[in-house]
């Protein structure tokens, strides 16, 4: 048996996502979110012997367990039947506010993004919302968003069983503390340091004295990732799966 090539950056991210999904019963991911979907599929594979993790991929025919139209996701979340969801954002700030609408003055934004989608609801009712954005730069990670599609925290009188628990980027993983409120740097991905994260981040954050590195997947996890997870992912995200396979092949040649 040839030794496995080392983990790709994306494989480390997917493994980090699976870790954030520990113990969830039902996770929903957006139609164009291959990485969160892969993380959820890895979670399924890791827990296969002990329990069933339900994964709903919006807009996918094969992974659609809904039969009541596009509103059912929100109903289901409102009923407390969705434990985890992913949100991105054109801007994310240090209070975990997210902006999916546009940069600059509203409504005539300098840059207009598609819109808030369901964030202004799901962020309130899904217990474990994971902020996921690969681009980690000062234009995304801002001190204060220009438009609050969904707020990171709410006053105590507001009904809010849900909210953000973590922020995962292409450079690092943060946890979110809603009492403070603010982010804490949990780990940096290979090649990053506290300093590079500081430079890339427009908001202040807490951090331990020694910032650990985001763990790469172990051999067993890598085998699951490159076997059943990749096969399953290819059904819904063929282009993403093809790129992944190409990256693996390229890496093997360099070994």
């Amino acid at each position, binding site marked *: 048996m040839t030794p496995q090539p080392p983990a790709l950056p994306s494989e480390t991210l997917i493994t980090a996502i699976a870790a954030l999904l520990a113990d969830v019963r039902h996770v929903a991911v957006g*139609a*164009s979110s291959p990485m969160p979907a892969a993380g959820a599929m890895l979670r399924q594979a890791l827990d296969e012997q002990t329990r069933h993790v339900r994964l709903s991929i919006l*807009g996918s*025919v094969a992974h659609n367990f*809904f*039969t*009541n*139209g*596009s*509103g059912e996701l*929100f*109903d289901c979340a*409102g009923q407390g039947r969705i434990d985890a969801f992913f949100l991105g954002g054109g801007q994310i700030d240090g209070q975990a506010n997210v902006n*999916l*609408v*546009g940069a600059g003055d*509203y*409504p*005539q*934004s*300098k840059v*207009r*993004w*598609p*819109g*808030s*989608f*369901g*964030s*202004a*609801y*799901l*962020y*309130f*009712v899904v217990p474990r919302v994971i902020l996921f954005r690969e681009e980690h730069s000062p234009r995304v990670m801002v001190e204060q968003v220009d*438009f*609050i*599609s*969904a*707020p990171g925290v*709410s*006053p105590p*009188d*507001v*009904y809010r069983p849900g909210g953000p628990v973590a922020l995962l980027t292409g450079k690092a993983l943060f946890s979110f503390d809603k009492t403070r409120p603010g982010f804490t740097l949990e780990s940096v991905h290979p090649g990053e340091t506290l300093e590079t994260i500081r430079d890339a981040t427009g908001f202040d954050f807490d951090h331990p004295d020694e910032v650990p590195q985001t763990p790469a997947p172990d051999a067993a996890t890598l085998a699951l990732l490159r076997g059943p997870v990749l096969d399953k992912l290819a059904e819904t995200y063929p282009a993403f799966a093809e790129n992944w396979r190409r990256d693996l092949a390229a890496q093997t040649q360099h070994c």
Partner: protein
Amino acid sequence: MLTNVVSLVDRLRDGMRIAVPVDYAGVAMAFTRPMIARGLRDLDLVCVPTGGLQVDQLIGAGCVRSVETSAVSLGEAGGAPRFNAAVKEGRIRVIDATCPAVHAGLIAAQKGSPFFPMRGLIGTDVLRNRPDWMVIDNPFADQGDPVVLIPAIKPDVAIFHAPMADRAGNVWIGRRRELAPMAYAATDTYVTVDRIVDDNLLADETTAAGVLPALYVSGIAHVPQGAWPYGLWGVYPADTDALKRYAAAARTQEGFDAYMAATDTPTEART
């Protein structure tokens, strides 16, 4: 009940409020060019709950006054170029919503209720920019518990594309059930379908389960592949390359005008 696209589009009027479905739920793309050709103006679009190519084209052609939506994009093909430009230039009024709020407004209309209460939203700029929404204290709570009330959304017209209809006017929507509240809420509903079947869809309980009854349908036109370049749920996929051709062309108004003046054809048929 069975007629053609042009005669259905003839029933639309300037200033109407028109509901259109999300990308994957059956967009009646075949209506778009006839609507533009008719020179419709000041349309108020309601996206259920998000919009895409149809919305972008109607905006690019100058038919639209406002868009109530949770998002407008071309999905994999990127941002919606004419929408984004129109917003930036202030040429349309964008009424930003969030997906479940659009559904809530339609459900209120479906139920004949004046409004629907909804969790979430408090503290968002979405709410801050919606003077038509109201916040009250939940009267069932012992202490302050703010909840947002979404008023009923009652479109003049709903338009969508579905896999099939029968000769009695029943339309099969399957599990794309968001199309039903759209039709319940709208005064009139015009539908394009891939095929017309001879048997009554209500006569068999298996097909009946996925039917929007004729009661809610004002007119149907038979347009095979009428959602193209969008796909039809469970029937055929989207023509992503065609969406990308449009996205590239429509980066400028001139490019858009040239694209719309020409005829595009399915990528599959081009080889």
